[in-house]
């Protein structure tokens, strides 16, 4: 594949297919439905023989539990949803986190809370990064800024999900999913061949059984188990946190933004540089684990940090926590709308 | 082979129930299910705290026909084993 004009929804689907996705199990919700519709139309595509199952579930609750079944059986499964649906999936994600079951969820962030709007927002940040489900459950969260990166992050997301046996969320929004961009289609390889040894699919010739539980009869067992999960998360944080820092070396003001907001911030940076201000952009690519180490490395240089996001200031809290009380950190929140360059620079 | 099978089906072949009392919860269903009345709940208690089932006939061959009714109604698994009198397990 060479350069192609692709819309976000189809690109995400294509990336999943190239990564070897086997099942799409979901429930329609604006603004994510185009992803589902694309995957529905892709059934039987001879280019992707691994893709064998598409099912529209009766609710997001049913969908996430189907993802759990497919993931528990060691197969690549995904869905796309928006905030409301993700709220319903929280129970399932919490179970998957403990049972160490991998699957991929694309959250196409819309206005919220409640029904909100069907227009883009970044207000699910807190939900997906801090506590995606009760009891301290988590997921790895990746945030693409455009169509091309969305494709790479879908592939990377599946890889991370299966390497670490953990649910992965791609946090995107209604803009990225609906926009068209010319993309140098990335080389994406299927994430696995065959099923992993821990898969629950019948003992077959394995001899011993695989049991994925989420309940424990005794808090000592739970404690030991959770300590293992914490160690796993630390490994993930050490190895997988990723970010991009453009023109940060000499910057006096650094915008901190993720996803589509980073594109707007980049425009602002360009404009400021044009006017002679040394501006830069720090763009977290993994929102969880948050690239705190890299961000902390920018402390003590008198840089003015401006966190811009399409919510009331959710990532701002994380940035403030990492940089500490003495750094200059401002928040540009935008609730219920899109940040435009004029509001930013 | 055929002669042996016939032998197993005559009343002359005696059977008995080998019991592992440690897992029994004393529900008593097997006692009530045995058509020959071969079982009873013990006066003693096992480590789970229940009056466990025991074979009524100590050291003698009882009227067990090997019907396995006790085995079928029992909600546990590791308690009852139906064996030929003096023989090994099945």
């Amino acid at each position, binding site marked *: 594949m060479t350069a192609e004009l692709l819309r976000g929804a189809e690109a995400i689907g294509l990336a999943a297919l190239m990564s070897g996705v086997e099942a799409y199990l979901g429930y329609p919700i604006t603004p994510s439905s185009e992803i589902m519709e694309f995957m529905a139309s892709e059934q039987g595509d001879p280019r992707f023989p691994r893709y064998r199952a598409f099912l529209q579930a009766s609710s997001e609750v049913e969908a996430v539990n189907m993802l759990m079944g497919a993931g528990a*059986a060691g197969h690549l499964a995904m869905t796309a949803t928006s905030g409301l649906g993700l709220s319903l999936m929280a129970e399932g994600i919490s179970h998957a986190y403990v049972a160490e079951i991998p699957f991929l969820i694309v959250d196409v962030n819309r206005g919220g809370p409640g029904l909100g709007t069907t227009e883009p927002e970044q207000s699910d940040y807190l939900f997906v990064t801090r506590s995606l489900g009760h009891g301290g459950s988590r997921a790895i969260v990746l945030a693409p800024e455009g169509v091309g990166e969305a494709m790479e992050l879908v592939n990377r997301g599946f890889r991370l999900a299966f390497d670490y046996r953990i649910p992965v969320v791609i946090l995107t929004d209604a803009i990225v999913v609906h926009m068209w961009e010319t993309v140098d289609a990335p080389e994406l390889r299927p994430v696995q061949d065959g099923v992993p040894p821990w898969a629950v699919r*019948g003992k077959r010739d394995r001899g011993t059984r695989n049991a994925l539980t989420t309940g424990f009869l005794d808090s000592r067992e739970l404690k030991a188990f959770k300590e293992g999960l914490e160690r796993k998360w630390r490994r993930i944080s050490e190895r997988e946190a990723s970010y991009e820092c453009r023109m940060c070396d000499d910057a006096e003001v650094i915008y901190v933004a993720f996803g589509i907001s980073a594109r707007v911030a980049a425009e602002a940076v360009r404009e400021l540089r044009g006017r002679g201000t040394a501006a830069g952009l720090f763009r977290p690519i993994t929102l969880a684990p948050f690239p705190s180490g890299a961000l902390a490395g920018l402390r003590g240089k008198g840089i003015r940090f401006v966190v811009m996001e399409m919510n009331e200031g959710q990532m701002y809290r994380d940035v403030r926590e990492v940089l500490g009380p003495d750094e200059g950190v401002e928040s540009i929140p935008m609730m219920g709308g899109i940040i435009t360059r004029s509001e930013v620079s | 082979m055929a002669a042996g099978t016939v032998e197993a089906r005559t009343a002359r072949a005696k059977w008995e129930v080998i019991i592992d009392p440690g897992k029994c919860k004393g529900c008593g269903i097997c006692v009530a299910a045995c058509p020959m009345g071969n079982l009873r709940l013990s006066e003693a208690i096992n480590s789970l705290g229940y009056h466990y089932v025991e074979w009524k006939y100590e050291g003698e061959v009882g009227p067990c026909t090997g019907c396995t009714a006790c085995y079928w109604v029992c*909600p546990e698994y590791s308690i009852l084993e139906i064996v030929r009198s003096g023989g090994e397990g099945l």
Partner: protein
Amino acid sequence: MGAEVRQATRIGLLYDGKASTFCPGCEQGLLLKLIARALEELGVADRAVTVGTVGCSSLGYLLFDSDFVQAPHGRAPAVMAGIKLVEPDAVVFAVQGDGDALSIGLQELLYAADRGIPMTVFMYNNMTFGMTGGQMAPTTIPGMRTTTTPRGRDVKLSGSPIDACRLLSAIDGPAYVRRAILAPRPLRVKGKIFYSTREALEAYRIVLNAFRAQLKGGFSFVEFVGTCNVNWRMGVDESKAFVHEVGAKYFPPGLCRDVYGLEGRGKV
């Protein structure tokens, strides 16, 4: 000596030497035994996947030596669907309580049944939420006292018990829908209580049929009406009598759907 075998009692799929996790007198242990035997008899033990539910049935995995994955409360049919879509020759089953299947999980159960993706659901109906201490369940009968209906279930407030078999036979998807009483009926013989193996053996045949339906590509659902003598505050014999005399009036045994004619009555 040991050559003549009347009836094999060893069941490979059950861990030997473990007491079950169920109360004395509960039939769930029996159900698990029947399931294990049936899977072995059908030669599919190595392809079996147990999906865990929430309730007393959830502890079954401690006794049952098959691949296992825990589902959240009520969601087992959805988890089973996910497994079957990617591993079609796995033989999946779940034992749901009446709460798991008909309260929180009703939607998942209905859609799984409606789609007809091959899987087997056993519902142990003991008219209560057993594990959590005896609260009202969707199948609690009118007037029955539970911890959340201390004055008896009030139909005006809480509705009537749900008839799972009738509900599931109203849709086209399922291949085998059956209800049976799993509790043995107490019979009085010369003033003493006697139990026959009739219910257990009939249940075994039904369990075999349920798995046969799945192997033929259908969705099977079996409701077994059983006791919860502890939460009903009854003795073992009294609770068996209650099921047969009272419970069976609301949940009469019967064959509600049999697309493959597994019970020999032709297509039902």
